[in-house]
């Protein structure tokens, strides 16, 4: 078995599929996708609802259909796939150690590695919900897998904590399957899900949304019996006396996603503590030469279409890297670093090599809280380079600014910050 590859992609979800296809298209001859599940497609396989693909395919697809389109594209490309294979480590010299029941423990050599492992859900432990520990408490994605793939119904009377999209989608899904969804509770004073999901998943079925509420107690000996919910103050602390007790047998948690970077960390890839993903250049190369990262392992995206676009950037760059035998070193004078300013929680990419920029670089970022009638200000060393008016900004919606090459050349060697300016700041 030849174990030398031009590009090895770790993860066969939407990010890995797009990166592998784009690497192949750009001249990487031997491309390998390693996937730990029994099939390609990643989390899309359990996202059976529609709404995917409007940006990329210009039509409404379900998750499995979106995945199938990319899986079909693999045909005839020569891209190799190993499913049911667990990557155990990636080294800085781009050796990929993996294991499966056919090859055993083995090592593959790569010219470039693309990390596309996606993200994991935060659990009850991660947010320290007090109370007893009965069965019936699930992360929303786990419940989604049980119902949509394995065919097990997880409960009859359901409370959902967290109004992210997965929580909203599961509220509708549980209702369609005959469960009674009592309410969705959200710690923040605003929802973290798409507005259309509030409309079509909650409003359509008369499911109430309690903003500024959180779970403060869980009761049940074997199975969950009741959940106590309290209103929170502006510091997000529960207010005594506001408790509501819900009799229910199931609690679903949709309380955030965390990029899954164990492999990246072990490879020595520096991680940005704000995104919980790698620090990357505009072509999604990490701080380790020839190791790239894209999709939800880099930062959590709202839409799979954006994951696809980002992963195409990484796949193309990985192929270029292999073809050219590496990228020339970028000097500090030729580097622009991007930083999150006032009101912005993170920016991706964190670094830009000016000489490797073609026409422009798109910077993606999230705001910290909701803003109305504000401005996005792009600034280098105090000088305003661009100001964009925004009628509304939400933390749940990833924002984007375009940084043209001319602007980057002017800012070479400096730091560009992206910040929110509200009327009061003027």
């Amino acid at each position, binding site marked *: 078995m030849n174990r030398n590859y031009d590009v090895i992609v770790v993860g066969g979800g939407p990010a890995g599929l797009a990166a592998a296809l784009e690497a192949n298209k750009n001249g990487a001859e031997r491309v390998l996708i390693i996937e730990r599940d029994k099939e390609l497609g990643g989390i899309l396989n359990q996202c059976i609802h529609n709404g995917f693909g409007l940006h990329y395919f210009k039509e409404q697809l379900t998750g499995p259909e979106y995945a199938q389109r990319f899986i079909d594209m693999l045909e005839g490309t020569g891209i190799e796939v190993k499913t049911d294979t667990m990557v155990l480590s990636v080294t800085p010299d781009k050796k990929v150690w993996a294991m499966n029941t056919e090859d055993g423990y083995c090592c593959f050599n790569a010219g470039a590695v693309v990390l596309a492992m996606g993200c994991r859900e935060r659990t009850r432990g991660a947010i320290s919900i007090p109370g007893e520990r009965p069965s019936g408490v699930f992360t929303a994605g786990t419940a989604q897998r049980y119902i949509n793939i394995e065919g097990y119904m997880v409960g009859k009377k359901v409370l959902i904590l967290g109004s992210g999209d997965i929580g909203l989608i599961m509220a509708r899904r549980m209702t*369609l399957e005959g469960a009674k969804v009592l309410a969705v509770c959200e710690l923040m004073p605003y929802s973290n899900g798409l507005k259309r999901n509030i409309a079509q998943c909650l409003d359509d079925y008369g499911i109430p949304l309690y903003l500024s509420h959180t779970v403060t107690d869980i009761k049940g000996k074997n199975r969950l019996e009741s959940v106590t919910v309290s209103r929170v103050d502006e510091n997000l602390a529960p207010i005594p006396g506001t408790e509501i007790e819900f009799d229910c047998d199931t609690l679903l948690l949709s309380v955030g996603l965390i990029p899954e970077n164990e492999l990246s960390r072990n490879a020595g890839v520096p991680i940005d503590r704000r995104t919980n993903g790698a620090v990357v250049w505009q072509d999604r190369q990490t701080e380790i030469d020839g190791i790239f990262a894209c999709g939800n392992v880099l930062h959590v995206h709202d839409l799979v279409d954006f994951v696809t676009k980002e992963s195409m950037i990484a796949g193309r760059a990985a192929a270029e890297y292999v073809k050219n035998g590496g990228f020339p070193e970028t000097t500090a004078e030729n580097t622009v670093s991007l930083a999150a300013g006032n009101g912005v929680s993170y920016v991706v990419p964190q670094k830009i090599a000016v000489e490797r920029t073609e026409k422009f670089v798109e910077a993606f970022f999230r705001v910290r809280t909701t803003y109305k009638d504000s401005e996005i200000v792009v600034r280098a060393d105090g000088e305003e380079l661009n100001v964009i008016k925004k009628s509304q900004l939400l933390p749940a919606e990833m924002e984007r600014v375009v940084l043209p090459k001319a602007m980057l050349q002017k800012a070479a060697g400096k730091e560009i910050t992206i910040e929110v300016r509200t009327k009061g700041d003027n």
Partner: protein
Amino acid sequence: MKREITCIVCPKGCLVTIDDANLEDVSGFGCPKGIEYAKNELLHPVRTVTSTVKIEGALHDRLPVRTNGDIPKELIFECMKLIRATKVSAPVRCGQVIIEDILGTGIDLIATRNA
């Protein structure tokens, strides 16, 4: 009376304002689809239904399905009853019709993956 309707056609989720006495009095939409959606919401709301049916002989025990168009909103739970009573056998191709002309709507229920 003015009604506010969140458009569900795309992830943007425009808040469309429409007068239920005069459907031409509409604002807040980001594209023509928003106008159409808001009008439909007042006249005859429709939705795409996505779910799963039982499958035998495939990698998993469930096959994801969807209606290949919108059906009247009031038929969603009727549609779910039919879906729950349906069982298919592998192989199935993505796009294959699972239930034809569901509830006389002219809309088919189709598979959304190969299995």
